[in-house]
């Protein structure tokens, strides 16, 4: 899966969680939750759909490594590569 495809999927999933926002306008270093006004309940729902859609299970201790779009993308790419190997 290419970075563009992952990004597109992320935007789709975020739009589902926060329908009144425009996730595609997120900048690389924006804090996702703060920018899109996502509370802890919706953040957990996002982790759930991420697992459903991409098969990536983010453990609680790694939440801090996925706060911005850049960090989240890099985390997902790494996870996909690990799955391959």
């Amino acid at each position: 899966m290419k970075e563009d495809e992952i990004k597109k999927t992320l935007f789709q999933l975020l739009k589902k969680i926060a329908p009144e926002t425009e996730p595609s306008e997120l900048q690389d270093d924006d804090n996702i939750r703060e920018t899109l006004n996502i509370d802890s309940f919706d953040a957990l729902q996002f982790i759930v759909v991420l697992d459903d859609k991409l098969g990536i299970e983010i453990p609680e201790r790694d939440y801090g490594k996925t706060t911005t779009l850049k960090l989240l993308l890099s985390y997902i790419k790494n996870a996909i590569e690990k799955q391959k190997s």
Partner: protein
Amino acid sequence: MIEFKMPSLGADMEDGTLIEWKKKPGDTVKRGDIIAEVETQKGLIEIEIFDEGIIDKFLIQEGTKVPVGAVMALLQPSGVSLETKKEKEPAPLQPTEEKTIKSTPISTAETRKIKVSPLARRIAEENHINLESVAGTGPDGAITKENVDHEIAKIEKIEPEKINAPAVAIRSAIAAAMSKSNSEIPHYYLEKKIDFTKALAWLQEANSQRSIKKRLLPVVLLIKATARSLSDFPDLNAIWENGLQQKKDINIGFVVSLTTGGIIVPAIHHTNLKSVDEIMETLNDIIPRARAFKLRSSELTDSTITLTSVGENGADVVYGIIYPPQVAIVGFGTISEQPFAEKGMLGIRSVVKATLAGDHRATDGLIGSRFLAAINNYLQNPDSL
């Protein structure tokens, strides 16, 4: 004959619009069945029935606005045959209003004095335009079709506000309830700093053994500890109506923020009897439904106390306003790392500040203070939750 009436879904509710009957005459219903869907300020609510029997007759048509307390349907109690009924039935209620949008009635007596072209009059009547408010620019100041069209365009410009109608309705419901509370309830406020470190460690361990879908949020522990403490201090799980009335069930109303602004407070039924996992399951169910304005009537009416939690990265402390006729509201601020002194040692701990706003007619600060201390004690022993 049992009468099914329009329920009150809050101190501020005066009426609701029947959208759909979910049963039909002849159907057998039992306690908890959804009998109707009603549009209220708090969205489309599924109305439950609290009697058992066979639906005999609907007295209200779908689409009708019905005042609280009006009889909407008649039921035969269980065990009574439909054929043997010979009881007096109340006359069916006439619809009070077909639409919620009020139109200004056009008085023919008054319009007679106004010069208006026949075409303009017809268009005005079709669009519920009061001709008295239209300035005429035709011969002798007569109102023309253009004048009426202009008036309609002015009203349509205001229309976009209606897109925001649920948010406006919620705002006015909150305004009514909070104003009533502030003018009638003498509040007292207490605050307790709670070391949340053990609870968070317990949660992290518990979540590491759960699938993603079963993960728990910290607020679940706060809800459970509050429910346990309410069992110890029943005067706070009560309403004030001609004096203090303790409630048998502990149904914590959980404040849900709406993405469009405003809040809705669905009840977590029998919170004290639920495990932390069951409380999380309930949140997974009611939060999305609250945000979609799809709650059940019992979820809007059965709360015996309210709990509000600020969540992450928010204010440190929240002081609530009691939702009448309840007598208390518990607040939890953001969980954050703070310097914390204990047994002569200073350390950094995860801390949450718990507050209680109590109705001073119902309880005193001593009870409230012990209640907050109890919440603290439960949170220091998360295994016991």
